[in-house]
């Protein structure tokens, strides 16, 4: 089964027209000693019925958000996706097209991307947005590279430790061989203190990168950070949560020069981490330094309003090694979903979604901190995510909560050695009071169980293997 329509008769007629006698002969340019003289070692082909059964069986070995209540955050969130989003994105005129190079044959996608750019400008309060990047982590890297092309003589990048640790790692990987010096500024109190920034910043500083609300869920002081940054003549880059902008000040209002985000929350499923949606908006004056595709409005021969890919002289297919970025294929379908999502919510829907997230997160935090020995790690305002400190907040404890039906939180010790006993939890508008109360009860019960040394798993679990042993085994391979 290969979706090929050519019958043996078709093939014979076509080979004759080409002037060769066999399919093999079509590959005569490939030296015989370089050809593969055996079948690829690939499992046997499956029919649609078999494939469906196989996939369902494998899916049954996963515990998705519908099976265990999801309080996980850290850049991917279990927000609700209205049916209209999937109905529109399921139109194959959108998802089986490619980059809209031929404007006349691509007005559907082009108009959607123009609307997307406009919505992201409205959301961020900034003058210009591109037609998408890959996801939130590489979007931070692209923003720093963009800053470098604005200020090519500055080489120091200051990064708040409260920025997503995997985004920091992505940035460090991207720029490893460029003349940039990354400095991480500690955030012991759950936010970057503007006074600490003031002490670290200097005339060599290219940009400051912060996240608001940050990885711990806490609010930063973005206006003060922007002011300190601008006094040093540097650029302020912020990574934001699109949903938070239903309530919080917009990046353009507090002085961000470049704003980037993970746009998964705008109508895209969590999908084990991708495909997601990188957002990038900036002040209008930097438009020619932007990475990625841009759609612009123009008119056709008859003066009809229409849309085209524009300012392509920034891009790799024209500028090659001098391009602003190497990005070509982006995340068009995710941008379409975000467009439909934002249009379906409107200003009031976005505000209510943000309010529900904030109120439910605060309710969950209040209830959980009523438990003995559980407290909020940081004395900072937070939006939909918060950091708890509890002595038993370790991976085994979270495994126990999963057995009780909850993806309860992320163990922060994984990224922050000082936060070994801390969990971060996210609460979206989808979570109900019953689910939150259930989590609190499970949390309490799991602690009791753990204190008594009695683990009572609800489900039979596969035998747990020692992680260090696995690592040895992999190394040995």
């Amino acid at each position, binding site marked *: *089964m290969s*979706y090929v329509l*050519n019958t043996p008769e078709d093939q014979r007629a*076509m080979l004759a027209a080409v002037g060769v006698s066999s*399919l093999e002969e079509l590959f005569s*340019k490939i030296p015989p000693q*370089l050809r*593969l003289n055996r079948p690829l070692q*690939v499992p046997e082909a*499956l029919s649609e019925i078999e494939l469906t059964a196989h*996939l369902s069986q494998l*899916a049954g070995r*996963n515990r*998705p958000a519908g*099976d265990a209540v999801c309080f996980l955050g850290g*850049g*991917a969130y279990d927000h609700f996706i209205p049916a*209209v989003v999937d109905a529109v994105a399921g139109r194959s005129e*959108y998802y*089986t097209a*490619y*980059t809209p190079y031929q404007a006349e044959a691509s007005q559907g996608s082009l108009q*959607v991307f*123009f609307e997307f750019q*406009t919505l992201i*400008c409205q959301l961020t309060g900034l003058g210009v947005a591109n037609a998408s990047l890959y996801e939130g*982590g590489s979007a931070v890297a692209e923003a720093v590279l963009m800053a470098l092309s604005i200020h090519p003589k500055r080489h120091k990048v200051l990064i708040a430790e409260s920025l997503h640790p995997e985004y920091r*790692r992505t940035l460090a990987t*991207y720029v490893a061989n460029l003349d940039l010096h990354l400095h991480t500024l500690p955030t012991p109190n759950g936010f970057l203190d503007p006074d600490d920034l003031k002490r670290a910043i200097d005339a060599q500083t290219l940009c400051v990168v912060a996240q608001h609300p940050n990885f711990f869920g806490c609010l930063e002081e973005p206006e003060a950070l922007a002011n300190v940054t601008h006094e040093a003549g540097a650029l302020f880059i912020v990574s934001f949560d699109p949903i938070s902008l239903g*309530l*919080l000040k*917009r990046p353009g209002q507090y002085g961000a020069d470049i704003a980037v985000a993970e746009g998964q929350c705008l109508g895209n499923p969590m999908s084990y981490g991708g495909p*997601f949606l990188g957002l990038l908006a900036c002040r209008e004056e930097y*438009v020619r330094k932007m990475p990625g595709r841009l759609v612009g*409005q123009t008119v*056709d021969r008859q003066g009809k309003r229409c849309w085209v890919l*524009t300012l*392509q*002289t920034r891009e*790799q*297919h024209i500028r*090659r090694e001098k391009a602003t*970025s*190497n*990005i070509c*294929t*982006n*995340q*068009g*379908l995710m941008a379409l979903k975000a467009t439909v999502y934002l249009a379906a*919510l*409107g*200003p009031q*829907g*976005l505000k209510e979604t943000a309010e529900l997230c904030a109120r439910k997160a605060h309710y969950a935090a209040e209830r959980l901190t009523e438990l003995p020995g559980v407290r909020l790690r940081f004395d900072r305002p937070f939006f939909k995510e918060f950091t708890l400190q509890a002595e038993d907040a370790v991976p085994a404890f979270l495994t126990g909560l999963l057995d009780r039906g909850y993806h309860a939180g992320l163990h922060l010790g994984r990224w922050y050695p000082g936060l070994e006993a801390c969990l971060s939890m996210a609460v979206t508008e989808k979570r109900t*009071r019953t689910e939150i109360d259930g989590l609190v009860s499970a949390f309490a019960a799991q602690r009791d169980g753990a204190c008594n040394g009695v683990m009572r798993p609800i489900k039979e679990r*596969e035998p747990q*293997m020692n992680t260090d042993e696995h*690592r040895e085994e*992999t190394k040995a391979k």
Partner: protein
Amino acid sequence: MDKNQSTELLFELSHPGRRTHRLPECDVPAENPLPASALAGYPPPLPEVGEIDLVRHFVNLSTRNMSIDTNFYPLGSCTMKYNPKRHERLASHPGMTDLHPLQSDESCQGMLAILWEMQNLLAEIAGLDGVSLQPAAGAQGELTALLVAASYYRDKGEKRSRVLIPDSAHGTNPASAALAGFDAVSVKSDSRGLVDLDDLRAKLDERVAVFMITNPNTLGLFDDQIATITELLHQKGALVYLDGANMNAILGVTRPGDFGADMMHYNVHKTFTGPHGGGGPGAGPIAVRKQLVSFLPAPLVARAGERYYLDYDRPKSIGRVHGFFGNVGILLRGWLYIRTLGSSGLRQVSENAVLNANYLLSRLKGIYDVPHGDRCMHEFVASARALRRERKISAMDIGKRLLDFGYHAPTVYFPLVVPEALMIEPTETESKETLDAFADALIRIRDEDADFLHDAPHELPLSRPDEVKAAKEPMLRWKPRHDSV
């Protein structure tokens, strides 16, 4: 496509007080405790649109696209093959889509089993040893592999600053090289359209880290000097990178690892039928030879006994290029495709992709210039150079006129080494009848009046957008009337 259809923007449809999505009442007693100083005061000025208006808007707009499901789409280098419907259904299984990227390995064993198998399948098809599924698209795959190469040389204590790239390469190659901190150096093509070995030898020295080659190349030719090329590079201690954009031509026929490539990327949205999503998402996993595996981004999926887990314990790793695992939804579709085809199905893909391209070439030979011979792999590049010279008909004119016949245009003006290029890739999923009808259209267009062609397309809702105006007076977002520029 209806010429008279409304093209109002969402913002022009906005009507205060309307909305599509409504939220439930809040069921918890907590108040919103955010400090007033952090609040915007009013939400972003998004459009307010009711449900039926919203649905009509986007459904009507969708009909203003050409797509694989509606039109033959021979866009060279993009492998616009049929996107099987079963993939869309199966990849949308909530047991796959509703997994959080940071949930425990124990709670996503099914997903990890698929990703682990996908790593192995891609290694086998490449003839290489290790695979990272993390890069989100081909260009990011290139960058990742070049970062791997940089770390590899750093680890060996060698300083190598250059990446050699043929002049026929995709623009992403030099852009990725620059981003990875290398100097991109162009290598000429010879008169046959292959790598000019003399020029390669002249530029090859101990400063060279990597040679990036697309094979089959962007002219649709398999460079039969490949064994010599890889040997030359390896003698100088350099690595060979294969841009896998054209893997659709060689599945199960030859493997990059077997012809000497040390690293490569796949375009899962091309070769393994993504789909393309209107410009993404793609997936650009990379495969590398043994000595490079320890530098791959973390995590990789590993297996111990029957248990799968994400292996982050990779001290020599370059780090990561994506906040999470990668474009899993696309990788899943690629896996479904490989599992549907099996080994003979994969080989049939390439045999028929190459057959279809050669058949189309045989129909057009003598009618259009095809500067690089009368045989090709999965695609070929025709040139309108003579038409341009004699009758002022350009590649763009031909591409635009094809739209009137219901065909998406080929890739035009690429590769840069062919003037007035028309790059045609039919793919294996098209029938002989479709290819014949497309050839007939191209033959007819050749004899049409030049002025008529300059004004094409004639049958679509619009024709020849003013791109100069778009770039000179950039209008990149809608603005309400009172909000002056």
